[in-house]
């Protein structure tokens, strides 16, 4: 056990801190509006040009081949500097791990650099009107078009975050009409500008147009944009949910920064009745940090993380709600004002819902971590 950072890690942190502090955008907009998205696309481009967009990726695709530990350090510095949300998030954290694992060399070359530089932005097309928590309820279909060398996609995707601004969508479609539930689906990469594809932006409760419905009618997708094997979409996609629930989507740095801002707020508006909550928030962010270092060491030593990622998702999503609730309590009558903490609270409340509801996550912990009977 050695809990000091290595010289490489320290110098990586110093370099990241210096660059991020010098370049952090002042008052960045929300990326969940059309205008904000465009501004943040520029920011992503700047990150990419300086090889900070995807630090853990191969150099060939714009990364620095950083270790997982260095990636965590980058995340700490990113949020510590007050940098904005990553509009490339669903690409680089959800799709990219699947492309690295299942993509052909040609797909990797086409997709990854364009994704990292935000030249092509990606949204996730999984949920459908009748398939939310239960993704096996997906009904959208893809029909073989041998003549054209590809597939014709028809159906509807919904709750597609930033779908109205993104260029492409990854999603699951049924390719075997006989198969049921988790079988017979294929993982497709769809051009949202393709003929037959209609995207309708939808307002979210925080006022941003952050959702979209995507209607597909006979949308052609060439064979080269099938990821992994035909009818193997479910197992291909599961690699991505692992990442989503695990440490890539929401690393500790984000919550450490929120906890620090909460402590600052307490300094400005102290209320002894809320001190315990403020301190407990800071303590929980630390707990998440050290649990992550513990997990990442295991991964770097060749171990695996499986259902334990459900514990991580439960922890950060519920911590985020508590941190924001405490801030709003500190704000008292100013809590209802449409400020940063209220915006953050509304976003935090989505945490226990997206990426697998916390009810499902607790089932997973009960069944797959503890071994309780399914039925």
């Amino acid at each position, binding site marked *: 056990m050695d809990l000091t950072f290595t010289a490489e890690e320290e110098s990586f942190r110093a370099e990241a801190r210096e660059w991020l502090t010098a370049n952090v955008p002042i008052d960045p907009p929300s990326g969940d509006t059309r205008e904000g998205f465009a501004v943040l696309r520029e920011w992503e481009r700047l990150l990419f040009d300086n090889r900070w967009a995807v630090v853990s990726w191969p150099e060939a695709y714009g990364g620095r081949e950083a270790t997982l530990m260095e990636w965590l350090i980058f995340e700490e510095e990113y949020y510590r500097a007050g940098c904005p949300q990553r509009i490339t998030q669903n690409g680089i954290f959800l799709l990219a791990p699947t492309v690295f694992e299942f993509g052909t060399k040609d797909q990797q070359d086409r997709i990854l650099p364009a994704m990292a530089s935000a030249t092509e932005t990606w949204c996730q097309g999984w949920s459908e009107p009748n398939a939310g928590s*239960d993704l096996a309820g997906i009904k959208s279909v893809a029909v073989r078009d041998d003549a054209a060398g590809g597939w014709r996609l028809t159906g509807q995707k919904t709750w597609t975050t930033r779908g109205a601004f993104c260029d492409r969508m990854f999603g699951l479609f049924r390719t075997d009409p006989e198969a049921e539930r988790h079988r017979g689906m294929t993982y497709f990469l769809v051009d949202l500008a393709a003929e037959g594809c209609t995207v309708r932006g939808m307002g979210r409760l925080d006022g941003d147009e952050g959702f979209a419905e995507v209607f597909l009618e006979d949308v052609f997708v060439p064979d080269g944009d099938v990821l992994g094997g035909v009818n193997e979409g479910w197992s291909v996609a599961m690699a991505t949910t692992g990442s989503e629930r695990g440490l890539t989507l929401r690393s500790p740095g984000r919550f450490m920064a929120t906890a620090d801002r909460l402590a600052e707020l307490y300094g400005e508006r102290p209320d002894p009745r809320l001190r315990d909550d403020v301190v407990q928030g800071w303590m929980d962010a630390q707990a998440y940090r050290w649990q992550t270092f513990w997990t990442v060491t295991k991964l770097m030593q060749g171990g695996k993380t499986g259902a334990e990622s459900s514990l991580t998702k439960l922890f950060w999503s519920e911590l985020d709600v508590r941190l924001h609730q405490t801030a709003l309590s500190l704000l008292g009558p100013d809590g209802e004002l449409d400020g940063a903490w209220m915006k953050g609270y509304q976003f935090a409340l989505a945490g226990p819902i997206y990426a697998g509801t916390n009810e499902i996550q607790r089932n997973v912990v009960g069944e797959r971590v503890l071994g309780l009977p399914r039925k």
Partner: protein
Amino acid sequence: MRFAFSDEQLAFRDAARDLLEKECPGHAVRAAWTNETGRAPGLWPKLGQLGLFDDDVEPTDVILVIEETGRACAPEPVVEAFATGRSEATLALAHTPYALYADQVAEILVESDGRLCAGTVGEPVASVDESRRLFSVDASPDPSELSVADVGDRAALAAAAQLLGLADAMLELTVPYASERKQFGAPIGSFQAVKHHLADAALALEFARPLVYRAAWELEHDTADAPVAVSLAKAAASKAGVITSRKALQVHGAIGYAHEYDLHLWMKRAWALAGAWGDPAWHRNRIATIIGVS
């Protein structure tokens, strides 16, 4: 001890519910988010005709009607009117410094150095509930004959009653949704975790409701217990409003997040009213002082 409403009081409530269902449906609340006034055009005089502001109505006569205005999420200055006894007034107190619809009313009352004074409208401030048009206000030296303590208690009571109605409405929106929405081949409301979420909301509401009705009676009779009763009511109703918001949103999942779905209108009103007119910490603190836990 007879802790129940009279038939007349219940009939008054029913009339208010009928009126509000007709005059203040969900789309009227939604329209108030973007229209000029933040209100439901025509509703305020109709509530007046119903008798909401009559001189001889007592708190126990109108408490259920105020609850109905919460159930309907009526975008109107109900709390302020009940607090001041004036249908064309608004109010700002130390713990609730922004005045609702201060750009539209005849009279602004502002707490200043512990006294209630006339005030003038200042700058707009944006509430998360966009029908709540709030303004900073400045106090003049003209004192009002109303006392801060009285209007504060009446405001807290009215907000508590609205919170009951808001919470009830959110439950009534969520239960049918959970009963119809299917995942994994079953209505999500049949899953134990979903049942327990909504049971927690029902629990908070069940034990807040009598406290609010009792506080109305204590205020009406100006008893020594009135301040504690009001604080019990507002703290419990605020908690019920916030818990029900949280559970309703969680059970709805993504659709609860859609701007075009009504849940968030109710939820944001509940958040706002839970914090206004003394949040739970404020009222808990007042009780602690009165009962001598310090």
